[in-house]
């Protein structure tokens, strides 16, 4: 059935003004030809709409893809321990609605790196140093003092500052580790430059290692000295790997919940990852990268 278009009286009046009808009461043939050409052109430039058949066929392909990714996810999950942070439903700070609160994360990280009630000693700090310094075997010879929110002049605060000592080839190595973390905020005006100037005057007992901790591992914009970029996901993977040797210690579950929070609230990973997840793609990508990193670290003799 041909559908009759409905047009307004105003349109018909305008049409009559621009194109008067012939004596026979019809529109001129030339005008109708032009109208037909214009209609054909307009149709060819209209955005294409997929047909129902195309949608159904696409749905079939997408479902097949989803199933293949779910199978891959199950293979990855089989390699993880049952209490891995990526399958835990509880995030430490999300319970307080502070999942992306920078100070909560940096204070908790400083507490975990230092020697505190958790019972880890400085093992997580050693694991982190070994990850950042690559190919070094680090066993701290003195208890490292780890400070959170260290005040410096100008009213600024360095997120984490730790003085570390270890032996390497019979020599004592001293290093001041400085971590500045950013979750949602950008660097403040000259923020890292202020830190760098302060660190030049206060380098501690040896070298200074500056670490800029962000979601995507971006380069800092305000630094005077080189800062090493570190992604939150790599921090989580490193600490998680070290955690496998800490299961019997009092702080183990705190660490798990902290890491779940880093993965879920900071990195946006689809945690808790379930084997029947309807969105297996991000989980497969995340677990694929974490497992390959873990395998690479194992080859290099990571502690823990």
């Amino acid at each position: 059935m041909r559908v009759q278009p409905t047009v307004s009286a105003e349109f018909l009046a305008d049409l009559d003004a621009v194109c008067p009808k012939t004596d026979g009461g019809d529109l001129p043939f030339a005008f109708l030809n032009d109208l037909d050409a214009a209609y054909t052109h307009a149709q060819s430039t209209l955005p294409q709409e997929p047909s129902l058949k195309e949608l159904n066929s696409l749905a079939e392909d997408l479902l097949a893809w989803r199933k293949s990714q779910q199978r891959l996810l199950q293979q990855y999950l089989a390699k993880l321990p049952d209490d891995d942070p990526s399958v835990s439903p509880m995030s430490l700070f999300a319970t307080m609605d502070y999942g992306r609160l920078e100070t909560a994360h940096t204070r908790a990280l400083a507490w975990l790196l230092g020697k505190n009630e958790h019972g880890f000693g400085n093992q997580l700090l050693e694991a982190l140093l070994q990850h950042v310094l690559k190919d070094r075997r680090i066993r701290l010879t003195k208890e490292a003092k780890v400070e959170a929110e260290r005040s410096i002049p100008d009213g600024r605060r360095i997120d984490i500052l730790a003085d570390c000592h270890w032996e390497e080839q019979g020599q004592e190595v001293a290093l001041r580790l400085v971590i500045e973390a950013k979750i949602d905020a950008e660097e403040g005006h000259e923020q890292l430059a202020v830190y760098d100037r302060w660190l030049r005057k206060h380098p501690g007992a040896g070298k200074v290692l500056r670490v800029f901790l962000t979601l995507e591992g971006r380069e800092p914009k305000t630094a005077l000295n080189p800062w090493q970029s570190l992604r939150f996901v790599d921090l989580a993977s490193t600490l998680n790997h070290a955690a496998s040797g800490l299961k019997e210690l009092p702080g183990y579950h705190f660490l798990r919940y902290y890491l779940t929070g880093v993965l879920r609230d900071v990195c946006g990973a689809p945690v808790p990852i379930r084997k029947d997840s309807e969105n297996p793609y991000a989980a497969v990508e995340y677990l694929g990268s974490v497992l390959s990193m873990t395998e690479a670290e194992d080859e290099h003799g990571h502690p823990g």
Partner: protein
Amino acid sequence: MAILGKCLLFYLKYSAEMKQLYQAESPNLKGVPNAKQVMEKVQLVGDAASREVAKFLESCVPGIEQHFRSIGVIRRLRTNLAETWHQEFLVSAPRTKNRRFRVGVCLEVDPPSWVPYVWSRGRRPAGDAIIRILGRKGEHAGGADWTPGSVTLPRIEIQLDQPAEFDALVSQVVRAFKPLTAARVKAICGIYRYPSPS
């Protein structure tokens, strides 16, 4: 009865796959069957869904503008809706030019819903203040996609297993902003004071 477009509903039903294949800058096609044909169809469906999102958001604009004009000042922030999938407005109380905040509507895919929201400068404390002013009728918007200080109003869920009536959804979105009364708009404007133009 007009209903939400079929491509948008398809997009929402297969949002995990469409996100990977349509939104990603360089989609990972590993394991995708008939990858070339699938990508052509994904492009077609994604583009059509984007036009349907833009049409919906455009339909919400008059009602939202009318509400805020009756109690204050509103200015629409124009963007390509088919690209951004959200519409924002600047809102201020009468005679408070350097005190303003934003309201907006966006589409979230998980769960499928239109999300009306309010945002003020001042990061999380500003969000806390908005929630207090709204009498707890909002919550902090969570996740990496949201700017701190964003508060979502009650979401309008889109049912995928039954026809979603277009006009009814538009009305629900517009109604979601009704709790922002003149007094509350004034109070939210007071959260953050922009510097006066020099």
